[in-house]
């Protein structure tokens, strides 16, 4: 390693206090500085923070935005999510690759530009989209893709690609992004006016335990998908003895087709930061962490400035608003491209400077979380709800929504509809109503993202968005009748295979085996027994996987099979006696034929 490089790496480590638990920040900074985290850099980092090279390598190879091999000065990450496919991903990818003279995953010979793909970047409402370093470009077409490449070649400055800025705070000087908010429906919880500080004062009128009671009365449940009662989580953390507790905001928003947290971070930052502060007061914590996915890095300077602004105003810091003894500060932890880090224990691992492997439970985070201290992890939207509940009262909040699911839900709707975007709706709304609101026609199926991750067909259009029926983190993807549901299922499987942490066998191996089966059926060589195999394997993975990723990943396959019902006959045929249909004899003997220099007469 060159002297200078070693020196710079050492400086970066120093900037983060040579702290082993800040390995994520260190690795991200080194990656940005050198375009990779080389083995030499790993050794330097390991020495500085007091660990081994293999520990650093373990982290670096886990996250898709970090790389051991050098990447281009500019990295174009084209979003390959299913909605982007529907909106022309393939054509854009081909146009850009051709213009660059490389294939997907490669870097131009001069080391300037890397082209690669990446799962959902939270822009399904403006697909096809891409990240150019941290700059978002949306509504791509082959022509715009080619132009983008030509422009980059000239200046290698992603920010110059932003010629037109989006609306709302996307225009803010610290954001300056072409992203549009696409808020289609404004509800009373998130999109009503919000005056910073007021909810905090309301909270201070109450004892911390009474704040928790207020949240309990509102019946607020987690908006990240699992729907765990927020007050119960807080209570557990508050009652677990410990010198220090943590409040973590989950802004990892990785579920394909979800982008509502992006809009909340852009437009409701004050409400979010205030919600975190209230949570800190309620559970007895002085430190908050926002885990921000790498894809939303473009929002980081803006969020940072909001935190600093609140420090100046006395809404954060020591003795907040004159409340003696209550201190609270917030830092932003950047992710580095790993869907699994949205799972709360994996998120905690990542914050600790580890691979994003979920942890074994028990213990649960409120008992033993970040750095083994009691920790609450809440979704962005949940924490925004907290501020509003303190402002308007638990009764007001509980009067909105359905019987068991109070309040509103911010949904991200995309796919085959005329009005993709963000909708704040009361819980209890039916999927049929959502189809009408988003002006979708000829709907064949819907994919409801989240722990249920259901693919529902025409039969269930009266399903309600709520925790007793269709529980969701907020993604609704609409597919028209012409889309092949098994192909959709295969697309999701590819995503989960890439994003599995690989810790447990059922998810790590099972998903690949399931994908192979689905692929066999799609390519026309399936037999009826394969459908049973798909069902059995799916149920096995769901029942046996360690965390929510594996436990929900096969659902689209089951959903597709259910929608087909008996009609799946069209995909599979009873096998004729003889060779396995998926076995291609001529392909199998090519090698041998080449070697002996003649063709087999049996093929």
């Amino acid at each position, binding site marked *: 390693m060159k002297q200078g490089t070693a020196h710079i790496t050492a400086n970066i480590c120093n900037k983060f206090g040579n702290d082993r638990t800040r390995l994520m920040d260190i690795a991200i900074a080194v990656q940005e500085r050198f375009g990779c985290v080389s*083995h030499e850099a790993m050794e330097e980092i390991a020495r500085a923070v007091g*660990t*081994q*090279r*293999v*520990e650093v*390598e*373990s982290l670096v*190879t*886990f996250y898709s935005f970090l790389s051991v091999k050098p990447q281009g000065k500019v990295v174009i990450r084209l979003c390959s999510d299913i909605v982007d496919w529907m909106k022309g991903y393939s054509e854009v990818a081909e146009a850009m690759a051709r213009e660059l003279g490389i294939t997907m995953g490669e870097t131009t010979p001069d080391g300037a530009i890397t082209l690669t793909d990446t799962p959902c970047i939270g822009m399904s409402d403006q697909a096809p989209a891409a990240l150019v370093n941290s700059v978002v470009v949306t509504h791509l077409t082959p022509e715009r893709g080619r132009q983008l490449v030509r422009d980059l070649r000239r200046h290698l400055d992603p920010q110059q690609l932003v010629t037109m800025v989006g609306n709302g705070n996307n225009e803010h000087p610290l954001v300056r992004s072409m992203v549009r908010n696409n808020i289609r429906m404004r509800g009373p919880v998130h999109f009503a006016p919000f005056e910073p500080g007021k909810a905090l004062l309301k909270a201070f009128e109450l004892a911390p335990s009474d704040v928790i009671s207020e949240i309990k009365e509102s019946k607020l449940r987690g908006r990240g998908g699992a729907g765990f009662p927020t007050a119960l989580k807080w209570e557990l953390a508050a009652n677990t003895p410990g010198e220090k507790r943590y409040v973590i905001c989950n802004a990892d928003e990785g579920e394909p087709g979800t982008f509502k947290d992006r809009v909340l971070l852009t437009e409701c930052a004050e409400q979010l930061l205030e919600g975190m502060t209230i949570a800190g007061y309620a559970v007895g914590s002085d430190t908050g962490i926002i885990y921000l996915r790498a894809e939303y890095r473009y929002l980081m300077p803006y969020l940072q400035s909001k935190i600093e602004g609140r420090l100046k105003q006395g809404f954060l810091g020591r003795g907040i608003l004159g409340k003696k003894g209550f201190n609270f500060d917030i830092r932003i932890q950047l992710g580095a491209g*790993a869907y*699994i880090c949205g799972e709360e224990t994996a998120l905690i691992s990542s914050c600790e400077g580890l*691979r*994003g492997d979920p942890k*074994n*439970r*028990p213990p649960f985070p409120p008992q033993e979380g970040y750095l083994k201290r009691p920790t609450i992890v809440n979704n962005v939207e949940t924490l925004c709800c907290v501020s509003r509940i303190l402002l308007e009262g638990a009764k007001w909040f509980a009067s909105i929504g359905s019987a068991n699911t109070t309040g509103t839900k911010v949904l991200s709707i995309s796919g085959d509809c005329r009005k993709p975007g963000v909708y704040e709706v009361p819980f209890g709304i039916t999927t049929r109503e959502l189809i009408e609101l988003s002006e979708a026609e000829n709907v064949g199926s819907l994919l409801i993202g989240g722990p249920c991750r259901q693919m529902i067909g025409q039969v269930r259009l009266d399903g309600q968005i709520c925790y007793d029926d269709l529980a969701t983190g907020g993604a609704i993807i609409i597919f028209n009748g012409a889309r092949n549901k098994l192909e959709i299922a295969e697309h999701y499987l590819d995503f989960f*295979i*890439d*994003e*599995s*942490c*690989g*810790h*447990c*066998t*059922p998810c*790590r*191996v*099972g*998903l*690949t*085996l399931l994908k*192979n089966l689905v692929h066999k059926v799609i390519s026309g060589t399936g037999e009826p027994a394969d459908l049973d195999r798909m069902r059995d394997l799916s149920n*096995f993975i769901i*029942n*046996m*996987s*360690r965390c929510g990723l594996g436990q929900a990943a096969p659902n689209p396959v089951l959903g597709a099979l259910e929608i087909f019902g008996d009609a799946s006959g069209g995909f599979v045929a009873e096998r004729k006696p003889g060779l396995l249909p998926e076995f291609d004899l001529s392909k199998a003997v090519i090698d041998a034929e080449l070697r002996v220099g003649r063709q087999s007469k049996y093929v």
Partner: protein
Amino acid sequence: MSRISFTIDGVTVQAIKGQSILKAADAAGIYIPRLCAYRDLVPHGSCRVCSVKVNGRIQAACVQTVIEGAVVENNTPELEEYRSNIIDMLFVEGNHFCMFCEKSGFCELQALAYRFGIAVPKYQFLYPKREIDMSHPHVYVDHNRCILCGRCVQASQSMDSKNVFQFIGRGIRKRLQVNGDSLAKTDLKVTDEAVSVCPVGALVRKRVGYETPVGLRRYDEAPIGDDIEPGKGDR
């Protein structure tokens, strides 16, 4: 120490609060199949072979702690099938050729396959391309046979006070990695516990293979699990 009682397949078992279901079952002479868990190492919870039903929900017995009054199911057809699926998956995920393997007869994966009556895995082989690291004078790593149980990673840290192994990559591309350009560049010693805890033939001592004649190897004599619950594993 407060004591807790619960049942496994209807049999009442006494346990210490905070103990894992697996440890409690062992103490009670009930065998729950397992692969990644090893003696006093912190359970890795990765293979999922030890899955049992606790009050109707599937949990890994090596990590789940005992719960007063819990109803645990162990020997059910559903769980047996699921466990056997996992063993099948571990076979097709790597390249396991038992007939040539030095670990044959001592291998826990092979022994479990026998116990479950598996002759041929029911899934298609994935035939991955994996490396073999022969660089070290006394130990080699054959990644074809690694099942990612994590025993060596932890044993190196907690028993040898080193850090020779870690996992890299994720998902199906997850691999064992050594702390250096090759095993020879690490401070691994042939006497390290990390070498002896490997359940399969992935971490192997050189020049001692096939020393024990067939018929006298560990699992020739009794099926895996027989030390905990004698006489149950024979088919």
